[in-house]
C-alpha cells in the first residue's frame, strides 16, 4: 500500500510509462512485465455515449465524488484522431480542469490514431500502468460510436452509457446498437425537457433485450447541477456487487488474460514469420498462383 502511495505521487514517471506503452517504444515490454503482477486492484468504469451527452462533465462529477471518499482516481479520455492528417484535438480535460491539480487524480488523453485493434491494446496498457501505480477507480471515456470504441469499453468492469434527452426517436438508439453494451444507463442533463420521457423510452427498450440476470438500471442525472449522482453511484455499486456474486469479474479477467496472450502471440508470430528468408519469395509465388496462401502459411509455420 505504501508503495502504491509513493508510485501514485510520481506523476512524471507514470506519464512517461504511459507514453512508452502507448507507443510501444523501446522498453515497453519491460514496463508491462514489471507492473503486471501489481495490477488488478482498480475498478474500471467505461463511460460512453454520443458526442455532447456530457461524458466528460459526468466523469468529472463522479471523479470528485470518489475523490471525496478518499479514492485515487485515474481517467483515460479518448478522442478521435483525424483520418486525414493523423493529428487530433483532445479536449476532454476542459471539463476536468479543476481536478487536474488534485493529488488523488490523474488524467490522460489519448487519440484513436486509427489503428485497427491497436487502440484497445494501447488503452489496456495505459489502464495497467495506472492500476499498478495505485488507482482505485479508473474511468475510460470514449465516444460511443464505432467498433474500436466498443472494444475498449469491453475492458471495463462496468459500462456506463450516457444519454441525453432530445437526440431523436427511439429507433436512433436501437440502430446504434448501444443498448447491448451498457450495464448502467444515465440520462444526463435531467433539467432539460423530455428527460423523463427519454428515461421511460430507454427502460422500454431495455425490456426488449433478451432476459438476462442483470437488468441495466436507468438513472436521471445532471452532471453540472450535481443531481442524481448518489443514485448513479449506487447503481454502479450494485452492478459491481452483482458481478462479484456471479463470478463475472473472474470471467472478465480470464477473457482479458486470454486476449492479452493472443495479441502478443499474434505480434510475435508475425514478427518471426516476416523475418523468415522464405517470406518474400513465398509472396511472389502466391501472387503468381504457383502456391496457395494456406500452403505458404503452413510452410512458414513449420
Amino acid at each position: 500500500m505504501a508503495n502504491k502511495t509513493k508510485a501514485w505521487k510520481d506523476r512524471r514517471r507514470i506519464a512517461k510509462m504511459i507514453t512508452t506503452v502507448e507507443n510501444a517504444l523501446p522498453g515497453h515490454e519491460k514496463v508491462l512485465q514489471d507492473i503486471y503482477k501489481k495490477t488488478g486492484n482498480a475498478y474500471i468504469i467505461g463511460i460512453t455515449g454520443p458526442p455532447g451527452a456530457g461524458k466528460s462533465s459526468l466523469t468529472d462529477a463522479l471523479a470528485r465524488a470518489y475523490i471525496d471518499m478518499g479514492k485515487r482516481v485515474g481517467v483515460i479520455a479518448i478522442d478521435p484522431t483525424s483520418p486525414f492528417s493523423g493529428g487530433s484535438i483532445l479536449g476532454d480535460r476542459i471539463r476536468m480542469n479543476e481536478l487536474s491539480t488534485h493529488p488523488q487524480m490523474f488524467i490522460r488523453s489519448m487519440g484513436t490514431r486509427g489503428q485497427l485493434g491497436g487502440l484497445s491494446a494501447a488503452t489496456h496498457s495505459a489502464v495497467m500502468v495506472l492500476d499498478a501505480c495505485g488507482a482505485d477507480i479508473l474511468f475510460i471515456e470514449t465516444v460511443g460510436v464505432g467498433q474500436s470504441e466498443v472494444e475498449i469499453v469491453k475492458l471495463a468492469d462496468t459500462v456506463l452509457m450516457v444519454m441525453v434527452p432530445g437526440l431523436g426517436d427511439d429507433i436512433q438508439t436501437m440502430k446504434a446498437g448501444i443498448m447491448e453494451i451498457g450495464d448502467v444507463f444515465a440520462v444526463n442533463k435531467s433539467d432539460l425537457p423530455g428527460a423523463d420521457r427519454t428515461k421511460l423510452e430507454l427502460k422500454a427498450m431495455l425490456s426488449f433485450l433478451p432476459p438476462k440476470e442483470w437488468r441495466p438500471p436507468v438513472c436521471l442525472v445532471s452532471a453540472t447541477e450535481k443531481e442524481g449522482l448518489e443514485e448513479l453511484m449506487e447503481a454502479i455499486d450494485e452492478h459491481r456487487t452483482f458481478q462479484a456474486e456471479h463470478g463475472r469479474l473472474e470471467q472478465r479477467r480470464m477473457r482479458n488474460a486470454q486476449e492479452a496472450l493472443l495479441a502478443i502471440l499474434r505480434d510475435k508470430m508475425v514478427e518471426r514469420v516476416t523475418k523468415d528468408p522464405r517470406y518474400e519469395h513465398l509472396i511472389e509465388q502466391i501472387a503468381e498462383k504457383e502456391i496457395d496462401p494456406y500452403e505458404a502459411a503452413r510452410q512458414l509455420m513449420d
Partner: protein
Amino acid sequence: MEKPIRVLVAKPGLDGHDRGAKVIARALRDAGMEVIYTGLRQTPEQIVAAAIQEDVEVVAVSILSGAHATLLPKIRDLLNEEGAQDMLFVAGGVIPDEDITFLKEKGIAAVFTPGTATTEVVSFIQENVKK
C-alpha cells in the same frame, strides 16, 4: 506508426479570447500533432499539472491579458521544478517587443505575435522538439 508530437495548448490569465488558441490548435492538428486543449483561464499550476500528466513535448500558451511577464516565467519555473526542463515552451499573443527579450531569458523558447503565420509556429515546433 511514428509517435505524433504531443502539444498542450492552454490559455493562462483572465482574458476570454480563445480564437487564437483555437486557430493554433487546429493548425497543429492539421500538421499531424496530438493537441491537448485545456481551454480558458488556466492557472500556471493547472497548465503544468496537465503538461506533466499528458507527457507532452510542447507547451503552447496564448495570452492577451498583459500578464505575460508574471505568468509565463511562473509556468516555466514550475515545469522545471517538476523535472520537465526538456519541454519546449512557446507563447503567443499581444506581447510588446521589449518584453520578448526578457521572456526568452526566462526560458520561453519563442514568442509569436499577432500576424504570425500558423505555418511558422508549426515549423518552429517541428524543428525544436527534441527527438
